[in-house]
């Protein structure tokens, strides 16, 4: 085999490999990095009341920060004698869902642990206010 021919074949082989990688790299975009939905702040899921005497099953969308409490003035009224008037604030800040206790008497519990500083919530976390438990979905 003449050297020129072999050199040509060598370059064709490399060209094929690069053509292949180019095809993949061009269209792989949607499969790499974080999904769009998680980045946008307005689609952050919802909270569902999973344990409560009176409001079980109610759903609240998670979006702009909202105050949960026993008071009528609260954005989301939690009908629970152990909840404080303004108990906890839940909402999306910088792309993450944060739960900030507002100095409640009986405390806010995330997954069973009392939290005193703003705590990020993710899907599946439980949020306990008094005897009421909400789940992030």
């Amino acid at each position, binding site marked *: 085999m003449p050297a020129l021919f072999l*050199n040509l*074949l*060598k370059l*064709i*082989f490399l060209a094929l*490999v690069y053509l*292949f990688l180019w095809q993949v790299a061009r269209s792989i975009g949607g499969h*790499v990095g974080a999904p769009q939905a998680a980045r946008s702040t307005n689609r952050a899921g919802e909270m569902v009341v999973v344990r409560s005497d009176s409001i079980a099953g109610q759903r609240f969308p998670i979006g702009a920060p909202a105050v949960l409490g026993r008071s009528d003035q609260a954005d989301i009224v939690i009908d629970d004698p152990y909840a404080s008037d303004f108990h906890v604030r839940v909402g999306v800040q910088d792309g993450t869902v944060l739960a900030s206790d507002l100095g409640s008497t009986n405390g806010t519990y995330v997954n069973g642990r009392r939290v005193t500083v703003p705590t990020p919530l993710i*899907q599946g976390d439980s949020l306990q206010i008094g005897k009421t438990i909400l789940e992030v979905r």
Partner: protein
Amino acid sequence: MTRSAEAALLLTASVVAAFGTALVGFTRGIGLDAQVALTFIVFVGAFGAIHLSLRRWAPSANPYLFPLAAILAAIGLTEVYRLDPELGSVQRWSLLIAAGGASGLIFLLRGDGVAVLRRYRYLFLTLGVVLLLLPWLPDEWLVHGIEANGSRLWVGLDLPGRTLSFQPGEIAKLLLAVFLASYLADHHLAMGTTRRNIGRLALPPLRQFGPILLAAAAAFAVLVYQRDLGASLLIFALFVGAIYLATGQLAYIVAGAALVVAGGVTSYQLFGHVQRRVGAWLDPFADFSDTGYQVAQGLFAFGSGSLTGSGVGMGRPDLIPAAATDFIFAAVAEEMGFAGAVAVIAGFALLVAAGFGIALHTRDLFRRFLAACLTLVLALQTLLILAGVLRLFPITGITLPFMSYGGTSLVANMLLLAMLARISHGARA
């Protein structure tokens, strides 16, 4: 851009593989022979089977995983076949077996299969450690350990006429990844948040870390005792990386790196084989004819490869010890040049990016961690061996996924991709 595009890419990779085999034939002066057709048929058969299983049981799985593996396998097989046609034909059989295994796993994990994995984490941990211990079976037994190059990593099964051998550690790393993902999915919150403070030093909750530390210690002790530097580093880095993924605290990476340095210095003092490898890394030319020979030959291969390489079959990668296994990347760099080496790195980079992409797209915690841990295994293994061959790090004898000669490695990495593919199907459904 889905399954039919995947089919087109797989077919292209098969053509590249056949082309590679043809190149070897041309430079040997044999021209086109039956081997070319055989390579093409094996690639089409192996990846075709996987493609059909994906269509049937995971239709919305990520369509890039197996094509990327196929192009890497095509480049790898070309070099393996060039170095030794005998090894090349064994590798083709391995590819068929690996594809069968991957298709089977895609079938087994259909429906809720991945979630079932989560429940049996301690079974997988035990199995993983048992697999790591297998090479200690006495030599006289039907199934026995095999010692090669000073490490006992292989298990052989004596059949009439020949011995089938495999490397159980390759499969163990998958089982350990499943254990880790399952454990972290249940405990990551407690591991990341509750901490005790002693003075200004924040301590992680030891109760949560107990099982994971024990598991790491068990796997690590076995491997260090077996003198398998590569696998022990890989497992250690996997545990550290997974804990970092679960807690998001950089301190674990720092602590892990400090432990590696401390462990490295200690084992350098204690073990001759570590001293030899570090010596070959720092100055391969100091003891060129003996300990530094392999690394030095690897470097020569990179140097002589130039931009587009000597051409398949026209270099001398056969001078590098273990060119078909650990040093396959040096062989590629010599005969396909800088361009070929960059293509290989790009292929792995895309594969790892796709793997972490699957983790990010998956909402279920266990699947998310599993995808991340599996990708971590692949990425760490690739990095360790590439850095070793390039003399950025002491050489740690492990295989380059999909490319090195070795059946167990190929099977294990194809199973890994099958799990990733199945997880990605769930994520997008």
